[in-house]
């Protein structure tokens, strides 16, 4: 099985372990990831906030390159890239004036932006192949975790069309597939502060501590995410979070692909587990043992 792959900037830097775990899991599942050649940044939040034209042109260029490389689908693990690629595609498909403008910025002939590849997030992608994953599980992930989706995977629902907007369940299903248990909690889609990590760290501390607080109270052993911004805010900014907590917490934050990788028996190194700021130490199997009669 072959699918286009757009890692995006975060996955080559601050969230290298997300890239490493996606690639390792793909290899284990015998999926061929074809990286979009010479890809550029999607523009992320800063582009749509202060430069609307570039916020559509940058993702359009990525999708155009993928299309020219013959890729019908592009897997985008980063939730921000996923959102920008989808939004860019949506704007081009629904607004002819925008499309013409972007064609001029890209310097490509009219019609080049027709039938751009389909954009998939990593949960969506893995949910298509549950049997393949289940067949390769070697050591069940027997832990109770909180699946945290954040903003951009599910919103705006008109564009993403992924899962239930206020109470998504697709990631929970994946965790259950590899033997884990997920908690029911209130902060699945609350914002962590996203791109304010550097320019307004206090906002990130306030918002992310609420998320950690709820997960802690409900006895999650780890938080599972699928977004580099959510991950770095909950992991790298833990000191800022703990200052606002009733009791400091050392709950680790894992990417969904790391959870699946562990169940597939992949090594900590190949999953990049050592790159986290909050050490990934999960208690020994905590699911209630089966009652032996």
């Amino acid at each position, binding site marked *: 099985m072959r699918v286009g792959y757009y890692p995006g*900037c*975060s996955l*080559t*830097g*601050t*969230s*290298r372990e997300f890239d490493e775990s996606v690639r390792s899991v793909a290899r284990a599942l015998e999926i061929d990831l074809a990286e979009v*050649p*010479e*890809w*550029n*940044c999607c*523009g*992320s*939040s*800063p*582009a*749509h*906030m*202060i*430069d*609307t*034209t*570039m916020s559509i*042109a*940058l993702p359009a*260029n990525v999708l155009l390159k993928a299309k020219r490389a013959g890729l019908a689908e592009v897997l985008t693990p980063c939730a921000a890239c996923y959102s920008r690629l989808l939004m860019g595609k949506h704007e081009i498909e629904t607004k002819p004036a925008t499309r013409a*403008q972007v064609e*001029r*910025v*890209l*310097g490509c002939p009219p019609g080049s932006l027709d039938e751009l590849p389909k954009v998939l997030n990593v949960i969506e992608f893995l949910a298509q192949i549950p049997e393949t994953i289940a067949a390769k599980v070697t050591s069940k992930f027997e832990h109770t975790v909180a699946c945290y989706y954040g*903003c*951009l995977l599910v*919103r*705006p*629902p008109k564009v993403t069309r992924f899962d239930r*907007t206020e109470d998504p369940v697709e990631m929970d299903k994946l965790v259950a597939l590899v033997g884990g248990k997920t908690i029911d909690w209130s902060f699945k*889609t*609350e*914002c962590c*502060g*996203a*791109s*304010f990590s*550097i*320019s*307004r760290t206090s*906002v990130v501390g*306030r*918002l992310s501590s609420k998320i950690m607080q709820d997960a802690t109270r409900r006895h999650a052993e780890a938080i599972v995410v699928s977004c580099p911004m959510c991950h770095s805010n909950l992991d*790298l900014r833990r000191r800022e979070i703990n200052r606002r907590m009733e009791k400091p917490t050392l709950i680790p934050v894992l990417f969904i692909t790391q959870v699946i990788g562990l169940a597939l028996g992949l090594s900590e190194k190949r999953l990049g587990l*050592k*790159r*986290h*700021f909050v050490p990934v130490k999960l208690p020994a199997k905590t699911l209630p043992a089966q009652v032996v009669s």
Partner: protein
Amino acid sequence: MGQPDTVTQMHDTAPDAPRVRCFAVKKGTNRRPIGAYFSQSEGRTLTPEKYMSCHHESPSARHSLAARLKEVGEVDVADCYQCGKCTAGCPAAEEMDVAPSQILRLLQTESPKHEKRALESMSIWLCIGCETCVTRCPQEVDLPRAMDILRQESLARNVANRAADDIVAFHKAFLHSIERSGRVFEFGMIGDYKLRTGHLFQDLGAAPSMFLKGKMSLLPHGGGSKREVGRMFARARAAKKESQP
């Protein structure tokens, strides 16, 4: 009106004037009730005549922000009936000086004073872009899109709130990094941000472990997209210049 701090009225002097009740304003926030803007700009009492005159202030004389939002972003602020759902769910509302729903209210009047208040607000910069408001809006008013347009208009008119300087600097440093490298070069981008803001010592504690964990590279990694992206930025800038008289 048992709790004057939580429910505010637009004005309280004229018994015959329309009494418009605003939504709850949380105690202890720096946000003022929306009535404050009206009484400040239109006098203490807002009579129906005054309200109408401010509402229909020479629409032909200038291009209002509301009209611009409709034209550029397909956002119709008139769709908003001030239910306050956006403000209730906004993760940043606590820190905002003008609540998200109040931003829409200010634009609905099409009064230059109110528009100025919106463009100079901190709120447009504190909006994270989480899309919760538009997801829950019963009228599907695309407030995040409106915020994008307001931010850009605020920069174009050079009226952006100075307290947002560091946020603006971050966005600019980020885009500058893309323009130069094709991708975001985090180390260079953060250096650029520090120079723009003077926050030279921020996060220095985290830097060594970032390097040790292999999360930050000292060299850009733009690949072959570097020059191509630079050209895209140049073409976009030229097109923008052409469209302006």
